[in-house]
């Protein structure tokens, strides 16, 4: 049993990357406006994160070095500082949004105003990173997050016109009601979300927390090849369910309640209860992932001791960063800013963070001083370079498109 549970790191990482609060709402929004016409972007994104997560997992297993170590080492302290600030802002803003997401899930389930829930979520998140074993946390939230599979069940229960859905998938253009710039903006947003840097920070650091060694290379690959496609599938099913439910009626989605509504429609109260468990687990898992990644990236830039694998007294700086980020995040939310809107702004910083994160990974994956004989083969390099070009293009286009389309309005 334990062996099968060892893939939960990949699942949890993917959950934070594909079905966190921003993605939960954005996928439903995209489904409601574009149908499945952006599905190809999710597929491209899944492949991209697989390529780089595999590399960073391999590096972590063989050399024990997590991703942000490599960023500073290859790019130098100046460029890496720019990358750090960019990543930290993206990850910190996402953490803030996730705290809101968990609170919203509780509000949907129990009717308590989400603002009152926020402080409790903050404390609970801190207790988990302070006391709970990394492996326990990873397994628990990884498995509970799988409750989101209810979206797939709901899609089937909705008995949609599969050929119509299929036709949308194979038409990579905006529908008549939308224009190309908006289509491109959401394509980049979905791609950026699939490849967001904190996924590789968390995955590689998690591998070190789990004391991976060269013997665990197969395990690392298994995590990657299982977790991310699963995340992508959940993403697509959320979009599909929204497409089936909202698109024909021209209803726009912009909040969590609407995202889970179709499940209630097709599967009743039971379905709704299950999906809310999944949403709670996914957003809480994403909270932990983004929170820890903030700490990992700062500590790895400065060379400080980090991780849950040592006593807090031995990595006081790491834990201080975690606490500071949690407090600032919670306070930001208490100003009643919309958590989902917060993730939109993080797109801007992603544009900077993505190339600066993935270039060092590709370079180090070719370095025999790190990986011995296990450096990249030509195929891995081909994919890596291609995706790096794609990332650069997306980064350059992100901010102009965001301004031009007023963030997708």
């Amino acid at each position, binding site marked *: 049993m334990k062996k099968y549970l060892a893939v939960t790191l990949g699942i949890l990482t993917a959950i934070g990357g594909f079905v966190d609060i921003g993605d939960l709402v954005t996928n439903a929004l995209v489904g409601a406006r574009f149908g499945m016409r952006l599905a190809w972007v999710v597929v491209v994104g899944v492949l991209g994160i697989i390529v780089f997560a595999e590399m960073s997992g391999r590096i972590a297993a063989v050399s024990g070095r997590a991703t942000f170590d490599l960023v500073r080492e*290859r790019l130098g302290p100046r460029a890496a500082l720019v990358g750090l600030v960019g990543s930290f802002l993206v990850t910190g803003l996402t953490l803030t949004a996730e705290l809101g997401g968990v609170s919203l899930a509780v509000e949907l389930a129990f009717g308590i105003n989400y603002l009152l829930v926020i402080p409790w979520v903050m404390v609970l998140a801190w207790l988990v990173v302070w006391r709970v074993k990394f492996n326990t946390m990873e397994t628990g939230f990884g498995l509970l997050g799988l409750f989101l599979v209810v979206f797939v069940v709901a899609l089937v229960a909705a008995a949609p016109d599969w050929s119509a859905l299929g036709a949308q998938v194979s038409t990579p253009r905006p529908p008549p009601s939308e224009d190309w710039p908006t289509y491109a903006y959401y394509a980049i947003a979905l791609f950026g979300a699939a490849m967001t840097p904190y996924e590789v920070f968390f995955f590689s650091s998690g591998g070190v927390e789990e004391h991976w060694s060269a013997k665990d290379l197969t395990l690392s690959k298994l995590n990657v090849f299982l977790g991310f496609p699963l995340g992508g599938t959940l993403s697509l099913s959320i979009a599909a369910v929204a497409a089936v439910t909202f698109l024909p009626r021209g209803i726009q989605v912009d909040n969590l309640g609407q995202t889970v509504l179709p499940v209630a429609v097709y599967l009743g109260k039971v379905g709704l209860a299950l999906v809310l468990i999944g949403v709670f687990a996914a957003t809480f898992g994403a909270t932990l992932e983004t929170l820890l990644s903030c700490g990992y990236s700062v500590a790895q830039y400065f060379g400080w001791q980090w991780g849950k694998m040592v006593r807090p007294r031995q990595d006081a700086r790491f834990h201080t960063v975690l606490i500071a980020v949690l407090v600032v995040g919670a306070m930001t939310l208490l100003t009643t800013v919309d958590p989902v809107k917060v993730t939109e702004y993080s797109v801007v910083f992603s544009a900077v963070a993505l190339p600066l994160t993935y270039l060092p990974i590709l*370079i180090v994956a070719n370095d025999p001083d790190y990986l011995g004989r296990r450096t*990249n083969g030509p195929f891995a*390099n081909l994919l890596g*370079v291609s995706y790096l070009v794609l990332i650069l293009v997306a980064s350059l286009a992100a901010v102009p498109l965001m301004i031009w389309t007023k963030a997708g309005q």
Partner: protein
Amino acid sequence: MRLSELLGREVRDADNEYVGTVADLVLVQDGPLRGPYAASLRISGLILVERRHVRLLGYERDVLPVAFRWLLKRLAGRISYVPWEAVDLDEASVTLSVRTADLVEHDPAYRRRTS
């Protein structure tokens, strides 16, 4: 002197012509024994790049994907190796006792061929 003070410094040759900037130092572990573990790292020479502000990212050790190597070579200009004996340092500048025309091109693949 600190390494960070040396890296990026402008280098001129025996005719006071601009050659490039210091990209890295080549070290060989065959210096006098200090301490219990290994021979000290002797500074054997400098690696120079023609253009400024170019990070070699490991190109000089031949550990980059092919596409990067080509791109980097174009961006960096001439990459040369100079043995330490031909280097003259003072507070602010680095001068060589050889002429630019006599500089040897640094061959990153030497490591692979001889290992």
